[in-house]
């Protein structure tokens, strides 16, 4: 007897649900489905709703979009928040800048991550597990503290500047903290495991006999890499790129702690709109616009992933 059937209340509930055509199978689907529907999908509808309402001095600080006037319901949709986003250059600039930062960081992470992933994938077994563990280990420690560590590295009296002054390379400290450079560095650093792992998972499956065949046919290592290894690893490249690029667009902690006052990434703009200006409708409009901005690259990457998977 199974756990469920051996316990009468469970048995009775199962039978009761059965009358309505709900069997165990439907129930198993329903639990995660309903949870995600209520706490993942519906929230977006709420955000969309609030993005077309007007700010108000109340709690919650926005006007209802449907108002009852005795008999009739009036629907007040206000697209002013979106118009505001388009007219104030702050927002457009923040979106463009975020995409640029995320894209550049993803490319840099790819350039740094690929050789590491390749090296790990080609290592013999006990060493391979150890190296893989070393890549994952920083991911298990606090993200916030790893960003904080870079503050200590980059500040004017930080480790790097102190070292450069001590060796005599420079006389006065270089401003590194609170620059865009620090933001790129922070994103590449914290997201590197997300780039390395899918690349590794792909490269470890690479058939070495293909590389040998290419070498036997006279190809130089560089040409083997660009003609055999890289095309075959495209699914891993795209997966890694997506795992870095997409979340990095909305990054808040890194531009806040490492960037300067004019490093306006869209995640930071949303945060400030919500926590400092307390303008919930504009914050919602920023979020909806960010989703729209995200959908396009996700679709492109999905399609590229499909094509790469079909090609290999």
């Amino acid at each position, binding site marked *: 007897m*199974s*756990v*469920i*059937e051996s316990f009468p209340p469970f048995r009775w509930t199962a039978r009761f649900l059965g009358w309505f055509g709900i069997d165990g199978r439907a129930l*198993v*689907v329903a639990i*995660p*489905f309903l949870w*995600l529907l*209520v*706490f*993942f999908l519906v*929230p*977006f509808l*709420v*955000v969309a709703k609030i993005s077309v309402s007007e700010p108000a001095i109340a709690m*919650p600080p926005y006007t209802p979009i449907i108002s009852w006037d005795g008999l009739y319901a009036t629907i007040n949709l206000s697209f002013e928040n979106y118009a505001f986003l388009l007219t104030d250059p702050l927002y457009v600039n923040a979106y463009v800048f975020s995409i640029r930062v995320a894209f550049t960081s993803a490319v840099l992470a790819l350039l*740094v*991550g690929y*050789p*590491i992933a390749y*090296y*790990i994938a*080609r290592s013999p077994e006990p060493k391979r597990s150890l*190296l893989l563990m*070393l*890549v994952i*280990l*920083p991911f*298990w*420690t*606090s993200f*916030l503290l790893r960003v*904080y*560590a*870079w503050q*200590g*590295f980059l*500040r004017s*009296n930080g*480790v790097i500047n102190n070292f450069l002054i001590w060796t005599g390379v420079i006389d006065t400290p270089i401003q590194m903290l609170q620059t865009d450079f620090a933001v790129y560095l922070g994103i590449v*650093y914290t997201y*590197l495991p997300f780039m390395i792992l899918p690349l590794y998972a792909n490269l470890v499956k690479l058939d*070495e006999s293909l*590389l*040998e065949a290419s070498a036997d046919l006279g190809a130089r*290592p560089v040409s083997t890499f660009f003609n055999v290894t890289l095309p075959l690893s495209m699914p891993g490249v795209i997966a890694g790129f*997506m*795992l870095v690029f*997409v*979340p990095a667009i*909305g990054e*808040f902690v890194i531009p806040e702690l490492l960037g300067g006052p004019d490093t306006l990434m869209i*995640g930071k703009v*949303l945060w400030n709109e*919500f926590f400092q200006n307390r303008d919930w409708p504009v914050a*919602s409009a920023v*979020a909806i616009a*960010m*989703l729209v901005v995200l959908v396009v690259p996700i679709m492109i990457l999905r399609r590229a992933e499909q094509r790469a998977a079909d090609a290999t």
Partner: protein
Amino acid sequence: MRRGILLPTFAVLGFVFLYAPILSLIIFSFNESQLVTVWGGFSTKWYGELLRDPQILGAAWISLQVAAVSATVAVAFGTLAAFVLARFGPFRGRAMLTGMATAPLVMPEVITGLSLLLLFVSLEQIIGWPAGRGMLTIIIAHVTFCMAFVVVVVQSRLSGMDLDIEEAAMDLGARPVRVFFDITLPVIAPALVAGWLLAFTLSLDDLVVASFVTGPGASTLPMVIFSKVRLGVSPDINALATIIIAIVAIGVGIAMWLMRRGARRD
């Protein structure tokens, strides 16, 4: 295959890049001086200060509770979702479930946080639940985004699993529920443990989502760290980081040892 010196050098530099900042955190946690980057002699005073700070201890306790509950619920629901996606074949709403279960993986945290907060506020207005925000709302939010990671981990284990033993059990007359608890669950147990640890870590680490959905009185550890770090240099955070790194390293070490022992037995 020919192997030059270039690749190993690059890999070594990569690992230096990954570990140098962490190493400096550990070193400066034993620094006597208030300035985190100037060495003033060996001292463990920041550890003492940390352990006497009621704000940090309270926040750590809240974070641990939230993470344990969130990870457990996320593993339960995430396993159900993974099982449905891996075993149930086509059904209506499958594409939607796939999308909803994996989209949180790449969803920017600010959007997840804002959307859940607005949901909680609206729900409170309409049905009066959840009354106010605090640990419960953080747990709900964490379950939702941790589930996605559990689904990925468990689903890959399920699809790599030998289907014959499940079929054999069913041929011998076992009902689906019994097959799941007696056959499938023990086989995917390592993935459940991995998923739980992943969810626990993600929950413990989350600043952005928790900042949105929390209420008065429920500050998690990352929120306290963030407010301290934003105010400027605070050497006790280095001590905290060192403690966290030590716990993680010991945990990972034990996991690796267990895995190696398990692999040898197989």
